[in-house]
């Protein structure tokens, strides 16, 4: 397979039969190119749609702990359920297929003071992903980030109205220190929210900081899970069901206990929107598969033609003592080599085209068109495989023809 002589034969055959090489290579290049571009456009359309219609983070499932109302597995009624940090890690790990992001939320009241002004607010101790679930818009500075969580920093992000209440005479809050219940926090960001005045009177802090203040506990109030839009409405319902079962098992709550814990799927309100998103996903997949099929048919035709054209040459080689195996091997190795190179060329051109025109297409409702590298590589491998199969069948037949028949073939 890897002998230098064989490769020399193949390179000679490729170099001396340019048209044949070009035809089989071109089919693959074109197939992958069109696949990449169409699939990218499809993804772009999907992105636009999601931006238009799925703006309020409806892809969330909310988990609230409760108090059990039924005895279960030796536990008495009235047991208080509490979620912990490890619940977050476990969900992230065990539902990796569905979870786009996950964040806890611990809400507490607090009195904030700055230079003689003071007021009571609700503080929410959260993770960085909370920004997605609430669609919080940062006006200045930044949101809570991973470093805040890891370092348990005393940083807060305050609402626009909190700044307005406490910082008088046009003073800016960013970078100042705010006293909340006797502890000084640095303001690292100011946000606004489309949800109204109340929404803009929250103060966000890292949940690990809140846990540290509360005697270094690992309890969390609520868990907010953002699921991937691609799973669709039905997928989200299935996810909700298995998540419910999973948490009830973990915290030993009877399945039919109405008060043990609560789960709410925000997707219910926007069922149709999500259904449309999954139909769009199907259309994109259909376009991709269709293009690939057309490519497969193209390469199959070319391979049949190539082997037919070589019948006489193969007959001569057989008369010179070539075994059927070496004939099939040669034809296959050559075709796989050509299709691989051509596939890579198509892939590179396709990515290049998407990158170049990608930004200009937003007017046509195609936003950020891209195709995952693994998708393209899989598609290329698929075409190479089909080319090899399509080449193998006529090559085997040619290798079986008696040399005398092949030689007579003018």
């Amino acid at each position, binding site marked *: 397979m890897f002998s230098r002589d064989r490769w020399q034969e193949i390179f000679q055959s490729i170099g001396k039969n340019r048209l044949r090489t070009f035809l089989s290579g071109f089919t693959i290049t074109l197939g992958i190119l069109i696949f990449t571009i169409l699939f990218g456009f499809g993804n772009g359309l999907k992105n636009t749609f999601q931006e238009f219609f799925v703006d309020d983070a409806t892809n969330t499932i909310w988990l609230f702990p409760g108090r059990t109302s039924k005895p279960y597995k030796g536990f008495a009624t009235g047991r208080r359920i509490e979620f912990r940090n490890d619940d977050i890690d476990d969900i992230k790990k065990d539902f990796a297929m569905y979870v786009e992001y996950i964040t806890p939320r611990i809400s507490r009241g607090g009195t904030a003071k700055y230079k003689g002004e003071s007021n009571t607010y609700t503080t929410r101790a959260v993770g960085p992903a909370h920004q997605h679930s609430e669609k919080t818009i940062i006006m200045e500075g930044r949101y809570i980030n991973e470093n805040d969580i890891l370092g348990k920093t005393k940083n807060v992000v305050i609402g626009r109205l909190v700044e307005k209440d406490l910082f008088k005479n046009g003073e800016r809050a960013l970078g100042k220190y705010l006293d909340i219940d006797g502890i000084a926090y640095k303001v690292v960001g100011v946000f606004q929210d489309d949800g109204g005045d109340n929404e803009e009177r929250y103060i966000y802090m890292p949940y690990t900081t809140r846990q540290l203040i509360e005697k270094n506990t690992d309890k969390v109030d609520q868990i907010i899970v953002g699921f991937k839009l691609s799973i669709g409405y039905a997928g989200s319902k299935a996810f909700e069901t298995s998540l419910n079962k999973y948490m009830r098992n973990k915290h030993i709550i009877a399945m039919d206990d109405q008060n043990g814990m609560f789960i709410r799927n925000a997707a219910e309100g926007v069922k149709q929107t999500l259904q449309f998103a999954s139909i769009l996903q199907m259309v994109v997949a259909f376009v991709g598969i269709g293009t690939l099929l057309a490519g497969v048919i193209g390469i199959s035709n070319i391979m049949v033609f190539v082997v037919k054209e070589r019948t006489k*040459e193969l007959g001569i080689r057989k008369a*010179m003592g070539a*075994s059927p195996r070496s004939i099939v091997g040669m034809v296959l190795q050559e075709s796989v080599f050509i299709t691989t190179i051509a596939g890579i060329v198509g892939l590179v051109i396709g990515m290049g085209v998407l990158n170049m025109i990608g930004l200009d297409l937003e007017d046509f409702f195609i936003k950020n068109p891209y195709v995952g590298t693994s998708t393209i590589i899989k598609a290329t491998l698929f075409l190479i495989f089909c080319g090899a199969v399509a080449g193998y069948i006529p090559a085997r037949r040619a290798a079986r023809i008696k040399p005398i028949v092949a030689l007579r073939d003018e």
Partner: protein
Amino acid sequence: MIEIKDLHKSYQMGSNSLHVLKGINFSVKEGELVAIMGSSGSGKSTLLNILGMLDESDSGDYTLDGVEIKNLNETKAAKYRNKFLGFVFQSFNLINYKTAAENVALPLYYQGIKRKERIEKALKYLEQVGLRDWATHLPSELSGGQKQRVAIARAMAAEPKVLLADEPTGALDTTTSYEVMDLIQKINDQGNTILVVTHEEDIAHMCKRIVHLKDGVIMEDKVIEQVRAEQYV
């Protein structure tokens, strides 16, 4: 060298079968130059194809250099062809994208000989047929006679036991034909066994023995006085 007993071959033509070879018995000793003659349809090419393992007989025995040729699968046939036989065809059958030297080296490639040695050998045999200077030319740049000489060099390169030539002069004019026959005679002079299928009397008389085929049987098998082609060249 070649031993054939009661060889039969028929072709299926739709519903009726055509009996081409009807019991051929003949043998060829080492160093012979045999012409197989006959009008078209007499079965001479079929016989040569069976001898060349390019085709299979229906019944009968065939022994080549002491090896019984029987129940061949394609892989085995390919091995025997490579080891025992060299072919020269009427239409030359050179690979058109390979140079003369590469064409001559092709059977050596299938013998598993190293590249360097292959090229050396190919040049040596091209030298023998007087085409050393044409080694890097493609078949399309050669005349018919030159092509056939390349084909003969190719057949000889594998150092076969038997050289089989199917109408080697069929596509050539008289002068070129005699040149090719002169080459074949010289190769025979070195002790090589050669079978030539032809329907031309003058070509046949340049061999040492003529086997006449008619309607699938041998009519006549005689040793003749060889006419040297040299005098016409």
